């Protein structure tokens, strides 16, 4: 029995090896590699060769994952000769340097896109010298200013604009609860500042509590149950949440406790499908969107310029995208876009 199982395992491993080495990028586009193209000093790709883009994203974060998938699809549909390979950082800053080292070691990437928390100037310079254009995204750091391109929609603005969209709906001397994302995470810090600055425009409003719940729906639900115990159903007027998922968790807790969530002022950030659905249902009053489509459009333009030779690997040309506040007034447009992308919530 043991021998047969060992044989079976060996067969499976051999088959996996053969399939892995023989095939192209896997269907989900993750972590495939192709080492046929030699290094070049320019990102410009000769006719017939494949332009290769490596993208390190956090698959555990819904917005990051959705954006990577939307952009990959848009780019690969737009070009015949562009291949986008997605790598998963698992939300771990420790995965960033190994990813860059891998790109340098392989030496045949034309474009690298990644999110970072540290000064990777040395790695970036090496990549650029090898003919790889580099873009970091979703955050801006002074220490990378002028080093490589930055595609960003301000995390601060996302929260600030969402907060400002509902600030006047909070009753006089209202009491607000704040749900934070992850302790110490830069995106959370900026979103928190955005909310606090929006709330500062209403000096009569009191922030009752501010708790981090890791952008997690269930954790936020538990937090809201405890808040309801502590402050009572009428003890708060508004909830500001650093993402829609946590706002939805808090709404579940309110519904379960017999509180009419529609009577509370609730705002979130991200405007993913489920957030927009909640806006449509009147459960969330406002959320804010950083458009995956804008990223896709900017990337397509960048690749076109790199392919034509208009830009080279050393090019530093940043893009800042405006956030879009989503309310009852415009949520249908966004839901229509999600329908086009095939999101149904099931």
């Amino acid at each position, binding site marked *: 029995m043991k021998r047969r199982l060992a044989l079976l395992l060996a067969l499976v491993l051999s088959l996996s090896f053969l399939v892995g080495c023989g095939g192209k990028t896997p269907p*989900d586009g993750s972590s495939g590699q192709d080492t046929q193209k030699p290094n070049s000093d320019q990102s410009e790709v000769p006719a017939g060769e494949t332009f290769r883009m490596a993208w390190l994203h956090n698959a555990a974060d*819904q917005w990051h994952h959705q954006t990577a998938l939307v952009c990959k699809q848009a780019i690969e549909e737009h070009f015949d000769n562009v291949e986008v390979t997605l790598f998963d950082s698992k939300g771990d800053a420790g995965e960033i340097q190994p990813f860059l080292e891998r790109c340098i070691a392989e030496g045949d990437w034309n474009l690298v896109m990644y999110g970072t928390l540290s000064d990777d100037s040395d790695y970036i310079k090496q990549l650029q010298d090898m003919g790889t254009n580099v873009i970091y995204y979703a955050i801006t750091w002074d220490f990378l200013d002028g080093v490589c391109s930055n595609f960003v929609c301000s995390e601060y603005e996302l929260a600030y604009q969402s907060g400002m969209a509902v600030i006047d709906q909070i009753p006089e001397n209202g009491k607000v609860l704040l749900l934070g994302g992850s302790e110490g995470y830069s995106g959370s810090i900026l979103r928190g500042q955005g909310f606090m600055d929006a709330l500062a425009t209403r000096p009569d409003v009191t922030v009752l509590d501010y708790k981090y719940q890791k952008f997690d*729906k*269930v954790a936020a639900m538990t937090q809201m*149950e*405890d808040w309801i*115990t502590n402050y009572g159903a009428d003890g708060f007027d508004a909830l500001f949440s650093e993402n829609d*998922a946590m706002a939805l968790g808090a709404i*579940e807790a309110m519904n379960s406790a017999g509180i009419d969530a529609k009577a509370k002022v609730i705002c979130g950030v991200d405007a993913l499908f489920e957030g927009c659905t909640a806006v449509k249902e009147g459960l969330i009053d406002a959320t804010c969107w950083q458009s995956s489509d804008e990223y896709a459009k900017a990337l397509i333009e960048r690749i076109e310029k790199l392919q034509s030779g208009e830009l080279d690997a050393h090019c530093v040309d940043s893009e800042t995208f405006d956030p879009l506040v989503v309310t009852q007034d415009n949520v249908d447009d966004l839901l229509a876009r999600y329908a086009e992308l095939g999101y149904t919530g099931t």
Partner: protein
Amino acid sequence: MKSISKSGTLNFIAKYSIYVITLLFMIVCSILNDKFLTGTNLINILRQVTVYAVLAFGQAILLISGNLDLCAGSTCCLAGLMALKMYLATGSLVVAVLAGMICGLVVNTISGCIVAFFRIPAFVATLGMQMAVRGVCYLITNGSMISQTGENWKFLGQGFVFGVIPVSVLIMLLSAVVLWVLMDQTTLGRNFYALGGNREAARACGINLNKNVILAFALSGLFMGLAGVLYTSRANCGVATGAQGYEGQAISATVIGGIGFAGGTGSAWGAIVGAVVLGIISNILNLLGVDSYVQQIVNGAIIVLAVGLDTFARSLRTSQ
């Protein structure tokens, strides 16, 4: 006579130390915050710990039999997703619960086979399975949330019987009874204790080690699958990133509840008490408005303190 009585008291306290500690803890909490000991809050705590507790039941079987499951969070997530998908396809909660439990059973049977037949330590085998199973979760959801769950899906995780008894708490208690019967009233349960207590002695007694390891994993998978159903039902959604790190909470609950890492000791009720202690810590810190950063420190310190006190009480009993 006096020394016998003293020794008896010590024995009693040591045997039920975690229950005594929990009781003392609750008294302290009720002094700290007057809302703590209200019926609504206590029911809230029980509802909040159901997923951890049922996961801890699965983990308890494995720890008692000398194994460990680091894949529990991923299994919980996958089982919940499968159950939700099955519910959306059939509209039947019963079919959904069965699908979730079978999913847990299948995942853990694979882990059990890897551990039993290839002599790979459970720590390594389940760590590998953790990544693989999480990958399957991403694959079946394509990374997006299943938010359209239908009308009755949340009944198991959020519903009430007679308007006051949470369904999830009933399921947790029923699961505890099933685990108690399994571990204390059946030969299979005694085999698990023997296996965890002394592997070689168990082999010498004629216990089939491989078969029992696989059975321990398979049965624990049923509990983990059920925990997954409760998780997605409570969340009222399915998401591939769900239940991350829950294996740590389940292990904490079992260890706090007196189920030793070395195997061969502990009970189902211990696991439930361990989960409740975790729930009480989180709840009282929230009620007191303790800062998020400080909460993590206090949380860790209290867990170490509770386990330390329990270990001290046990060592007192042993020295008696």
